[in-house]
């Protein structure tokens, strides 16, 4: 019984990284821009966050550094894609590849560093309830912040004026422009906020999840976060669900190995990726559903004045 509580707790932890990045990318894509550079941004943010944590000893400053790194990289991407109208896919890939090399380069000095002992967290009272306590209430505050943020994002997108404008820009930038909204500036803000969130996710990996720096430590989570947004048909609550699902399958495959289950470990390692494909297929199969949910201008360049 205890094992399952712990498995649930591990799932929440593993899923939070994907959730934060996924929500950031969702904001990005809602404005109509695809940023394939998620992996690169997360890597640079990871080393920025880790270096800050080593120098200052503060987790929250580290998250801030990560957010800043992500926002800056996203800003560079945004200028290229929004004002210079470069191809979004290629520019995003360039960002990923650059981020990979740059983070490894900058991080050389930090591979032997380590952080002070990680504190334990537990929600008072709730953390002590049998089963549910260890399962749900002994996480790092960021896990709960993520869930709160998701709620805030839902309110923002569907109940606030600003959110409506953002969605309008994503659906039809030409109409928004005709109405007088500064489409390009809105898109840049969305891209930078998305980048900042990917940065927080990256810092979470190197400061909380695995308190180390190693090159390439994001290990594909940025790409999976990208898959999540499609997976979730661009709805925040579903991004969270998908993130926890993926995190759960990842932890489950280790759990099964530990139990001595006779399926080869390589086949088990394939599980999370096959699961993503399966859900993608199921969701995409209905073209009407996709068309109804996907921001219509996603990936297409916008030329004001045309």
């Amino acid at each position, binding site marked *: 019984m205890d094992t399952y509580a712990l498995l649930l707790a591990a799932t929440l932890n593993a899923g939070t990284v994907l959730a934060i990045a996924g929500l950031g990318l969702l904001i990005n894509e809602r404005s109509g821009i695809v940023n394939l550079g998620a992996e690169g941004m997360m890597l640079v943010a990871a080393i920025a966050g880790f270096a800050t944590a080593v120098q200052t000893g503060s987790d929250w400053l580290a998250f801030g550094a990560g957010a800043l790194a992500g926002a800056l990289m996203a800003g560079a991407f945004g200028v290229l894609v929004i004002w210079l109208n470069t191809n979004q896919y290629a520019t995003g890939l360039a960002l990923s590849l650059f981020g990979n090399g740059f983070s490894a380069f900058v991080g050389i000095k930090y591979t032997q560093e380590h952080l002070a002992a990680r504190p334990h967290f537990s929600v008072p009272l709730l953390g002590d309830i049998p089963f549910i306590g260890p399962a749900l209430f002994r996480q790092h505050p960021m896990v709960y912040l993520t869930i709160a943020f998701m709620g805030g994002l839902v309110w923002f997108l569907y109940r606030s004026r600003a959110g409506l404008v953002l969605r309008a820009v994503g659906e039809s930038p030409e109409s928004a422009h005709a109405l007088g909204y500064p489409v390009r500036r809105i898109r840049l803000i969305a891209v930078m906020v998305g980048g900042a969130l990917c940065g927080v996710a990256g810092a979470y990996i190197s400061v909380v999840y695995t308190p180390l720096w190693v090159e390439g430590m994001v290990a594909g989570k940025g790409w999976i976060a990208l898959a999540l947004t499609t997976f979730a048909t661009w709805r925040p609550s579903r991004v969270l669900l998908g993130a926890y699902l993926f995190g759960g399958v990842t932890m489950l495959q280790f759990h099964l190995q530990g139990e001595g289950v006779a399926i080869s470990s390589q086949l088990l390692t394939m599980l999370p990726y096959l699961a993503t494909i399966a859900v993608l297929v199921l969701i*995409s199969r209905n073209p009407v559903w996709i068309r109804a949910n996907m921001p219509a201008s996603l990936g297409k360049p916008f030329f004001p004045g045309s």
Partner: protein
Amino acid sequence: MLQLEARPAPSRAMSLASPLIALLVTVLAGAALFALLGKDPSRGLAMFFVEPFRGANAVSELCVKATPLMLIGLGLAVCYRANVWNIGAEGQFVLGAIAASGVAMHASADSSHWIVLPILLAGVLGGMAWAAIVAFLRDRANASEILVSLMLVYVANQLLNYLVYGAWKDPDGYGFPQTITFLDATRIPRLFAGLRVNIGFVAALVSVATFWLFLFRVYGGFQMQVGGLAAAAARYAGFSSRRALWVALMISGGMAGLAGAFEVAGPIGQLTPYVPAGYGFAAIIVAYVGRLNPVGVLFSSLLMSLFYIGGELAQSRLGLPKSLTGVFQGVLLFSLLASDTLINYRVRWHAAHPAHPVKSPAA
């Protein structure tokens, strides 16, 4: 203030100058980095741009490294021209290597040298099969080819591990994860004794010519490009977008698989867990820097190969970190993308900005 102003027509001069500008920016950034790291910038740059050409062996290594990049890059160039974003060439490369190994392992002591042909064919079919999954899911279920092909890369790697740790493991190999070393008959013939460059390089050059003809002289190639540039116009003209999708993925998957077959039956000589070397991803840069043009891909694959080998030499001779190669490649691609805008836009200084840009951009 500085403003971007659309040109009436794309500037030909800029489209030539742009890659040179990008290269210059990269070189300058590199020199600055070397200086920052306390190394002599001219020696550092020499490692990247001069040393890899010195001697027959060095040039041969350049070609060996460029071969898979060229093969995969050509396939991706066709694919991206059709607006099909195959990011999973790495997975198709692995499947090609697996299929080729499967055939190679059946060779016996008295197999003739011609077994190389079925090995290469198996590689092509393996890569195609893996890409077919992507095509099928996009065709039938509308699933994004970017995400499916990427997820399949991870699956392909695990499949490779499953085979080399289990069913295909060398029984005399002390339990280490690798297949038998392929017999001599299966080895890709080399071009010159003592050098590693093999007919794979020749195949790549032939492919450059073939693809150039396909894209610019054959009706089918024209159809695919129109489909990629203006989907509505293509539909109106009766070009099947379904066919374009399948052709694009089959070609890029087949080329990636062929590259995998050449690697595994050539320089490596067996199937190991280390076959996935990232060529599938590097080839994306190669295709893009080559402007999706076969002749461009020829040069950009040599350039990319130069960066790789230069990075190794900088490491072993100057003690510079390995991650420099990645930084170089990223800066190159970024600067290329940025300077490419100058093809379609002009930079102008305006005293007061007009309400709207002077001319609308060509559609």
